[in-house]
């Protein structure tokens, strides 16, 4: 991935950046090995289950998955479902991210409010948000709102908490320096606090990107007539295991692409942090 490019452009870095991990991966063989592993797994998947007499409706073979994918594309309007899930995930992610960031900065700037609200934030953060999906369906009916709201909620908290954390550990001396320069509060926020919190915000977004797909999927599973989550519950009703597998695979693809998009934005923005090289690898 982009790690190799990073290591070459960062030759002037202090030594500690070259962690054991980086040394471990320094060979060019890593992607090739990953690819070989994938091929091996697919071959095993195709031939091992039939060898042990596992029926197709428990573990469909790779070729079955492929055929089902083509059938879904032709007969089930797969593209429409895929686009629906992808766009709703992105929308939920963007809305949840925006709200989480705004709330995080607002509470960071208003410590009294933060103290008052922190027990509730903690409770809501721990509460399994996806369990609200049936409730939202009762309230809003079988439309896009329940899944969108669930997703926004799911994405909201990790971002809120991460931003708040950055605002709490903010270097007071840095703020004092800006104050000593007679900087206005707005400028201090924009020029010091916002960039200072950027690593945390992006880490929150990275988590949010993967959670967004989960939120949408749960919403689609519980109710609705569109989306990959719906295809999963439909496939289950039809005892069509291949359909379920395919939908799960496509959901993963959406999640991976969103995660990758956030990570590449993160690497671009946080280029000034030597530790971003290591940080981008944590899940």
């Amino acid at each position, binding site marked *: 991935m982009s790690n190799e490019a990073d290591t070459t452009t960062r030759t002037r*870095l202090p030594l500690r950046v070259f962690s054991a991990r980086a040394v471990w991966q320094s060979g060019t063989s890593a992607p090739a090995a990953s690819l070989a592993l994938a091929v091996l797994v697919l071959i095993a998947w195709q031939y091992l289950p039939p060898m042990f007499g596992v029926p197709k409706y428990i573990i469909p073979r790779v070729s079955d998955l492929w055929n089902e994918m083509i059938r879904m594309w032709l007969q089930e309007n797969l593209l429409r479902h895929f686009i629906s899930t992808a766009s709703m995930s992105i929308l939920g992610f963007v809305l949840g991210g925006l709200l989480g960031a705004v709330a995080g900065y607002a509470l960071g700037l208003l410590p009294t409010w933060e103290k008052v609200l922190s027990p509730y934030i903690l409770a809501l953060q721990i509460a399994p948000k996806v369990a609200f999906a049936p409730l939202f369906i009762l309230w809003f009916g079988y439309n896009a709102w329940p899944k969108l709201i669930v997703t926004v909620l799911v994405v909201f908290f990790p971002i809120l908490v991460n931003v708040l954390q950055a605002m709490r550990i903010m*270097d007071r001396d*840095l703020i*004092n320096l800006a104050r*000593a*320069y007679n900087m206005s509060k707005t*400028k201090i926020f924009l020029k010091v606090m916002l960039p200072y919190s950027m690593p945390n915000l992006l880490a929150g977004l990275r988590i949010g990107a993967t959670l967004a797909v989960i939120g949408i999927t749960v919403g689609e599973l519980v109710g609705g007539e569109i989306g990959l989550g719906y295809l999963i519950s439909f496939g289950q009703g039809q005892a069509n295991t291949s359909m379920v597998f395919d939908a799960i695979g496509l959901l993963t693809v959406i999640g991976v692409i969103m995660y990758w998009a956030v990570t590449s934005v993160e690497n671009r923005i946080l280029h000034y*942090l*030597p530790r971003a090289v290591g940080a981008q690898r944590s899940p």
Partner: protein
Amino acid sequence: MFLYEQDLPVPSAKSNVLRFLDVARRFPGRTAGAPPFTAVRDLSFEVNESEFVSIVGPSGCGKSTLLNMIAGLDHPSEGTVSLHGVEVVGPNSSVGFMLQKDLLLPWRTVLHNVEFGLEARNMEPGARRERALKELKRCRITGFADRFPYQISGGQRQRAALARTLAIDPDVVLLDEPFSALDAQTKIVLQKSFAGTIANAGLTTLLITHDLSEAVAMSDRILVMSDGPGRIVDEIEVGLPDRDNPIARLATPRASEIVKHLFHALHIDNRLDA
């Protein structure tokens, strides 16, 4: 003190820039009802124009508190701090401030960091850049203008921090242990470099330091503070020539005499805790 009376320079007729008058600063007690903690008290002193004054004193005696009050980041509980005869009530753009931590913004290049202080003003970006470049040149780090802070050494970072401090054209520069995180060689090089820059610019400077020979090497006058609650217990006119050449100054016998005197004034030899 009168030890060196014979070599005292003629008292300068220059107006004083900075003045502390019976200043005390108390912090609220840790728990409700606890008596307030007095960090400094009875502080009265003046710093004249273009004078370089150092403050030495044990850790926790209130030196940083004193600087914060000049910068307008903190306020005295009693007494007044004034700059150019005007009481300090808040941050003032004629004061430059520099700490042991370079406080460079890691997301900005050196050049953009130097521009930071200027961004508080309504200044045209072109002019701002030009000003910053001029300052980088004066602090001898032009070659690193486009680097990020993590790409330069500790000494270069302090140079960049000084450039940022001087870029706003302050009349008064406050330095809070700017060299104490550096290795011995870099420290000497930077002391010389800072001394030259400050002497050429004719800046009024207040330096806080733990290093007694640094105080002697760089300043015109040294104020000695006592253990908390901090007060000024001694004042020494250094009276050495070549303020812009700290190394040459330290080689003189008088310098070592002052260091020895400071050493005793601070009771370093019989102090057990740091």
